[in-house]
């Protein structure tokens, strides 16, 4: 979706302000919101792409006004409510008021390190061949899906060069909708600064994105 999350190339946000000796978390609630988000994914039954869409799927002004962990927490609440895992009256009361739904794979302390270490690899076996090879010129398609996509607006319609064939990976555009992993060939595509930004682009800079085959056409 063309939401507040798709920030590449926007103006007006001012300078980057690094914080010296920044702590990992800035408040106790951030720690809990972070851990709840990680722990609920498996029992909640959503995947990483659904999680990302739940974060970006809100009015752009709201997205930009919230802190990052506020966005995470709002997404967690919305995903739980959508699945009837929790209801607003329960959050308001601060207690469970309704019969819990049956969930699987509740994260136990004994499993934490194992689960983190395993992660969630997204590469999948395939018997298809990649359509592009390094050096090929490609154009990023002009698409504007209202649903989740990982093709940023600033490269759409632009011509770049395939730098690397990464492998066949889960396709977020369908996985975010619960429409299957639908693995697709993934490429690193490099664009020149001037191709992306015109006269304002830096001719000594290039930018790459990792783009799935359905995002690309030969150029």
């Amino acid at each position, binding site marked *: 979706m063309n939401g507040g999350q*798709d*920030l*590449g*190339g926007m103006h007006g*946000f001012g300078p*980057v302000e*690094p*914080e010296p000796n920044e702590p*990992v978390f800035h*408040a106790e609630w951030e*720690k*809990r919101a*972070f851990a*709840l988000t990680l*722990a609920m994914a498996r*029992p909640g039954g959503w995947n*990483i792409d659904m999680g990302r869409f739940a*974060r*970006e799927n809100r009015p752009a002004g709201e997205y930009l006004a919230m802190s990052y962990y*506020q966005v995470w*927490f709002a997404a967690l*609440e919305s995903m*739980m409510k959508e699945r009837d*895992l*929790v209801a607003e009256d*329960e*959050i*308001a*009361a*601060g*207690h*469970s008021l309704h019969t*819990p739904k049956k*969930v699987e794979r*509740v994260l136990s*302390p004994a499993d*934490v390190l194992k*689960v*983190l*270490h*395993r*992660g*969630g*690899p*997204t*590469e999948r076996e395939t018997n298809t061949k990649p359509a592009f090879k390094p050096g090929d010129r490609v154009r990023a398609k002009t698409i504007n899906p209202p649903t989740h996509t*990982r093709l*940023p607006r600033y490269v759409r319609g632009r011509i770049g060069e395939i730098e690397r064939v*990464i492998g066949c*990976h*889960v396709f977020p555009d369908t996985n975010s909708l619960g429409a299957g992993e639908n693995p697709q060939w*993934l490429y690193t595509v*490099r664009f020149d600064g001037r191709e992306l930004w015109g006269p304002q682009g*830096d001719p*000594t*800079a*290039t*930018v*790459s994105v*990792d783009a799935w085959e359905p995002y690309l056409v030969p150029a």
Partner: protein
Amino acid sequence: MSDHHDHHHDHDHSELSETQLRVRALETVLTEKGYVDPAALDLLIETYETKVGPRNGARVVARAWADADYRARLLKDATPAIAELGYAGRQGEHIVALENTAAQHNMVVCTLCSCYPWPVLGLPPVWYKSAPYRSRAVSDPRGVLKDFGVTLPNDTKIRVWDSTAEIRYLVIPMRPKGTEGWSEDKLAALVTRDSMIGTGLAKQP
């Protein structure tokens, strides 16, 4: 239920933001429902506060500087090379190492969210997730570097990597001069978090 209600009243409500209260309320609800185990939450937090952070990445970089064979393995296929040091897993399932040279400087961003190589760098700092960085890293990388006090020679090419898929990028900064023969421990102390994102350089000895 009033006896279960105690920890909501530990503090004056005026000191607690609405978000704090809602997070606390949701955790209580989810715990009561049996969806989460608070001890697992504690362990998740402790892991990222104390165990998984940029010191991991610094060890990888130091080894790459000190050991040419390791450097070659890392640049060829970073995920197994990094796993040799015990770092792997969530948000680092597929890692690519990018070597900075005098000719090319690499810099990593995630314009769409906050993708970051957790096993080697830990959780991202606020600026990495912020609109100023995500908007300008791709369109004005030299300007962003200036925000960090970094000015590169005009003939150094800049290569920005937008982490739009599940590939995570780790920058291997240039090894500072005057560190020949140093131990990996001593080298690792020169490797900053920002130098592994590409918004900084390694410290000078």
